[in-house]
Structure formats: C-alpha cells, structure tokens
C-alpha cells in the first residue's frame, strides 16, 4: 500500500500536469498547416476512396510499413523470451455447446474479416481491423479447445507470419527501384494497396493470434 502522502503527491502532480495541458490546449491558435485539405486534394491519385486508408497505405504508407515491422518484432520478442518448449499440451475441451458455437462463429468471423478488408477502400475498415477479427476467431477456437496453443513455430507458420510484411517490402522495393520508396503509379495504386492489405490481414491475424497462443498458459511448460 502506498503511503497516503505519496499518493496525494502523485495525484496532485498528475492533476496539475493535466491542468497545464488543458490550459495549453485551450490557448492554442488555429494550426498553421491544414493537412485534411491536402489529403482531400490528392484523394483521386491515391488509389482508394477512403481518406484514412489513403493516409495509412499511401500518403504515410512508410509509417505503416515500419509499424507492421513493429508488430512482427513484438511477436519475435515473445518468441525469444518463451524459449524452447516442448510440444504444447492439449487444452481441455469446453462443453459441446460452446464448441458448437465456436465452430459456427469462426467461419463467420473470417467472412467479416474479408469484408472489413474489402470495405477499407471506401469506408472505415482495413487490414488491421480485419487481422484483429481473424485473431479473435483464433483465440475463440483456442479457448474452446479446438485450436491448440503454439510451441516453436515451424517453417510454414513462419512464412505465413512474415508473408504480409514480405509482400509489403517487395512492393516497396519494386517501387523504389523504379523511382521513390512506395511511390505507387496512380493507375495501379488501388490494386497494389489491396494486395498489400490482403497479405497484411493474414499475417497480422496470425501475429496477433500468436501473441495469445504463445503466451497463453495452455501452451506453457508449467504443470
């Protein structure tokens, strides 16, 4: 238990910092640069119709490239820490009703994921969200005992985990070879972005699922 005095001090510090932030925010003038206008003006050349997707995959696609790297890196970190493990223990199967539900829900969620990916071009959605839904499906299957936890991933799984990022890199490299990094030709932009997003959906889904399936205690060697 933190002593009362310390607690009060922390609260006071946090409150005064928050207060200073609020005051500073209220004091702000209108921003000098207005980026949304620039985004609007270049939408036609971006290859997609949804501004968020345009920013994420095209205007600032480089940030996204590195962020995908960060996600893969997070998985690597987990893999490195968990070390060598024996084959994962089978999970005790859940009640039949729950398993039934899971078997039913999982394909549905995959369908939703693909839809989210497709919809990303024109409305909110995209590879991240689609991947997250895929991962959720995997977690559901795992928790009901249908999908076992992961030990050390084999070659095929490693390829699938890296595939999305590799496709992204390949596109970036190909575009760099003919000009600038990730400078899509407007005519092929939509197609290339969809290709990248499709790859990302699978790999991100696997990565996110992996974070759970590797760390979950069922795959652990404690017993």
């Amino acid at each position, binding site marked *: *238990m933190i002593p009362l005095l310390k607690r009060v001090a922390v609260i006071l510090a946090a409150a005064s910092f928050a207060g200073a932030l609020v005051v500073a925010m209220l004091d702000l003038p209108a921003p000098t640069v207005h980026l949304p206008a620039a985004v609007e003006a270049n939408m036609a050349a971006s290859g997609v119709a949804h501004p968020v997707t345009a920013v994420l995959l095209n205007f600032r696609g480089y940030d996204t490239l590195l962020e995908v790297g960060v996600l893969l890196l997070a998985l690597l970190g987990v893999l490195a820490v968990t070390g060598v493990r024996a084959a994962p223990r089978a999970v005790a199967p859940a009640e039949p009703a729950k398993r039934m539900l899971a078997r039913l829900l999982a394909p549905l969620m995959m369908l939703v994921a693909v839809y989210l990916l497709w919809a990303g071009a024109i409305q909110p959605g995209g590879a991240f969200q689609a991947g997250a839904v895929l991962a*959720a499906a995997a977690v559901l299957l795992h928790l009901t005992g249908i999908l076992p936890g992961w030990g050390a991933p084999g070659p095929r799984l490693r390829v699938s985990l890296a595939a999305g990022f590799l496709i992204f890199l390949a596109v970036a490299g190909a575009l760099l070879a003919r000009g600038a990094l990730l400078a899509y030709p407007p005519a092929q932009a939509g197609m290339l972005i969809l290709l990248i997003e499709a790859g990302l959906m699978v790999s991100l889904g696997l990565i996110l699922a992996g974070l*759970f399936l590797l760390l979950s205690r069922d795959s652990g060697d404690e017993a």
Partner: protein
Amino acid sequence: MSASLAFDLLLAAALLWSAWRALATPDIFRAVVLFIVFGLLLTLAWARLAAPDIALAEAAIGAGLTGALLLDAVGALGSRKDGAP
C-alpha cells in the same frame, strides 16, 4: 448543456475512474476486469471522436485480446499459487 456534451463529460469521467480503479485496486482479478471496462469505454470514446477504425481496433485488441491474455495470466498465477506447497 446539450445531451451529447453531458454524455461526453460522463464518458471522460468514467474513463478516468476506471483507469484509476484499475491501478489502485489490490485485487488483480478486479484490476483486469476494470482494465477491460476501460478498454470498452475507450472504444466508445473513439467512436464519439468519429474514428470508427480506431474504435474497432481498440475493441478487438485493447479490450478483447489483451483482456483475454491478462485473464489467462491471472489464472496462471492463481494455479501456480495453488500448486505451491
């Protein structure tokens, strides 16, 4: 005060409260539950800020995946404690 502003203020207060409780509560299980509540409230907040993309991701990853993982960890801690002589 319009209804939407009232809702926003309430949401902000609830966010702060859940965050504080999650940090301050001594019971780990409760803390995790509060963390999930915090994630869901945050999803609402993103939605109110007209950022459905982020709301979706927050719900799936922030509340769902992370919450499940934390619950799992709490379970593992509990079983280890029970197993100890």
